[in-house]
């Protein structure tokens, strides 16, 4: 239970990308990529942002690192407000918040050596290192499990997992406190993925890092996170401690999402219940009024179609934005406790959308 102030506190964060048309570039609409998102992250912990393609995960991460200017909302980092700082004012903060990118192939300049790539942050920020940049870079390479002799090699000589390590070494150069990792392992094969996940966990322990991990793979997220926030079409719909979210999610969308994850166990395939979501995700240019999930939700009523459900605490440290949240599978619902709760997160008997 956190008693200290969070390292990062984001309130009402919103990003609307204007759509312009014509000679005068008049604004004719906006992509509501992120809308009124609120969450916080404790120092030394990992918060993951999950949700399906286009729901606003990357946009949120880019606002936190201030690679993008928010349309509105507040970003408090260690007590300082970041949302409206100018480039000059941001400069010292850039050291403390770093980003790791998804694609280890395109995020490294192919014409630069590993030494140049990992040492770049020192140059850019004009940081003096006591024993010289080369030594500092070699220490970093060692820290991420690469050979210091790799200093003069080029990215193409490395495998995907090794390239991701190079990217991680670069992000660690300036001793950041918060790292936003956008799909850090999704381009990697399973056997390599595990190496990078373990590395990130070890570094967190050793250096006391705080992570925001952006990922769409719910198994990876469960492995890495203390807290998990689920997004749908620009909104944050549920946030809870990892264990609670995976065993006792309360938002209909989270339930559907979790029930769709294939589990590598042949003996479960007959037993699993899956919630089939009908239709496609609506456009963020013209999102549905009220609850944005109502066009696909089997529990939607009139209030869902007109009123935005606020994010409220439904249980300790567990917040949900829904007018009709699902019953808890654990405590107060003895009738359902008989169901095999540990047997994969699945939907409760809600309606005809269930399939056995």
């Amino acid at each position, binding site marked *: 239970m956190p008693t200290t102030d969070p390292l990062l506190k984001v309130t009402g964060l919103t990003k609307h990308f204007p759509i312009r048309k014509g000679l005068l570039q008049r604004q004719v609409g906006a992509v509501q990529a992120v809308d009124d998102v609120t969450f916080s992250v404790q120092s030394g912990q990992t918060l993951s942002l999950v949700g*399906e*393609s286009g729901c606003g995960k990357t946009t949120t991460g880019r606002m936190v690192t201030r690679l993008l200017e928010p349309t509105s909302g507040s970003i408090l980092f260690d007590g300082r407000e970041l949302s409206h700082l100018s480039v000059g004012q941001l400069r010292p903060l850039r050291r403390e918040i770093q980003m790791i990118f998804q694609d280890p192939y395109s995020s490294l300049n192919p014409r630069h050596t590993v030494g140049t790539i990992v040492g770049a942050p020192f140059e850019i920020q004009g940081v003096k290192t006591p024993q010289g940049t080369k030594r500092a870079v070699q220490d970093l390479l060692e820290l991420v499990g690469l050979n210091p002799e790799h200093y003069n090699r080029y990215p193409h000589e490395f495998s995907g997992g090794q390239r991701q390590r190079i990217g991680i070494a670069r992000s660690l150069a300036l001793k950041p406190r918060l790292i936003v990792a956008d799909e850090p392992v999704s381009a990697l094969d399973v056997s390599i*993925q595990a190496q990078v*996940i*373990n590395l990130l966990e070890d570094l967190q322990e050793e250096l006391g890092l705080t992570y925001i991990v952006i990922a769409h*793979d719910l198994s990876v997220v469960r492995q890495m996170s203390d807290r998990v926030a689920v997004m749908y079409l620009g909104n944050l719909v549920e946030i809870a401690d*990892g264990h609670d979210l995976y065993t006792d999610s309360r938002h209909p969308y989270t339930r559907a999402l979790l029930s769709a994850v294939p*589990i590598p166990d042949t003996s479960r395939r007959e037993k699993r219940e899956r919630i089939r979501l009908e239709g496609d995700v609506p456009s963020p240019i013209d999102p549905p009024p009220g609850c944005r999930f109502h066009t696909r939700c089997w529990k939607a009523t009139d209030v869902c179609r007109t009123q935005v459900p606020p994010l409220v605490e439904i249980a300790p440290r567990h917040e949900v934005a829904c007018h009709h949240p699902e019953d808890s599978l654990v405590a107060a619902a003895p009738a359902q406790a008989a169901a095999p709760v540990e047997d994969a997160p699945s939907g409760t008997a809600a309606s005809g959308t269930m399939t056995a």
Partner: protein
Amino acid sequence: MSPAAPGTTTGSTAYETGIGGLGEPPANAYLSVRDLRVHFPTDDGIVKSVDGLSFDLARGKTLGIVGESGSGKSVTSLSIMGLHKPGTVRMQGSIRLDGQELVGAPAETVRGLRGKKMAMIFQDPLSAMHPFYTVGDQIIEAYQVHNKVPKKAARAHAIDLLGRVGIPQPNKRVDDYPHQFSGGMRQRAMIAMALSCDPDLLIADEPTTALDVTVQAQILDLIRDLQRDFDAAVIIITHDLGVVAELADDILVMYAGRSVEYASAHGVFNEPQHPYTWGLMASMPRLDRDPADRLMPIKGTPPSLISVPPGCPFSPRCAYAARVGAACVTERPAFHAPTSAHYLACHLDDGERMQIWSDEIEPNL
């Protein structure tokens, strides 16, 4: 199906000690691949993308092929479909489809089999669809290759298919261009195209990799339903073990272009026997495992297919090679079935393997 018989229900345990030894194809095999080798000569050397692959598949059954990036999964499917660029490839071994040999068959012959006898769903639907023709016209064209029917009837068939794969308002959407469809809809449209002639064999190469989980679930349901309706033989290729666990009757695990383990899905998931398969399972985060447990990655990276290590291709990364000794680095392990119809390519002797399995692997799975 009992866990005994990959590919068939006859449970043949006959095998040769040859590299791709799997014995004579059983009578009900619709597709039989024996010791397939697909090599690409390049400036840097010969890329041995597939180098000793054998399996059988009956109608109504699903085979899952799993393996990491570059293990030869797509090259295998393109070889079956006869889709390699002529002159770039050397193919050896045997691919028999409904009794007909495809390796060395004239391109004309193989082309004639596409659509009706076999069809493929590609990973990237945009690459398989032409951007300048409507979705409907592309399905109609595929259908008319094998069915001499008037355009109007073919169009009705296309609308029917789009409806069956879950495209809403198919009579309107049939005139859309591919870019007007969402990713999931495009994938469904491509499935409709692949199914236009009711193929006997459907190869799905990473059909859901680019898709979100909820869309993936829709597509997997669809493949399952369609297989039931058409009694098709299905090959599903993926690196996601969860996906094969949902669909496959049998599983073939590939490493560096070779089959390393081949058994019923139940056998591979509950009693995997090859060290590489053990490694894959231990390195995978999964929802039914305690997240406090540390993942156990496989050390190192897969070999270059231009210079695959002699002996067992997995030997540089294998934690058990030391228990076998020199054979792992000098001698290629035969593909054989120590227990009934659970095939693997590994030198570990059976007693030692069972020991490792019960002491180290099973308790952690």
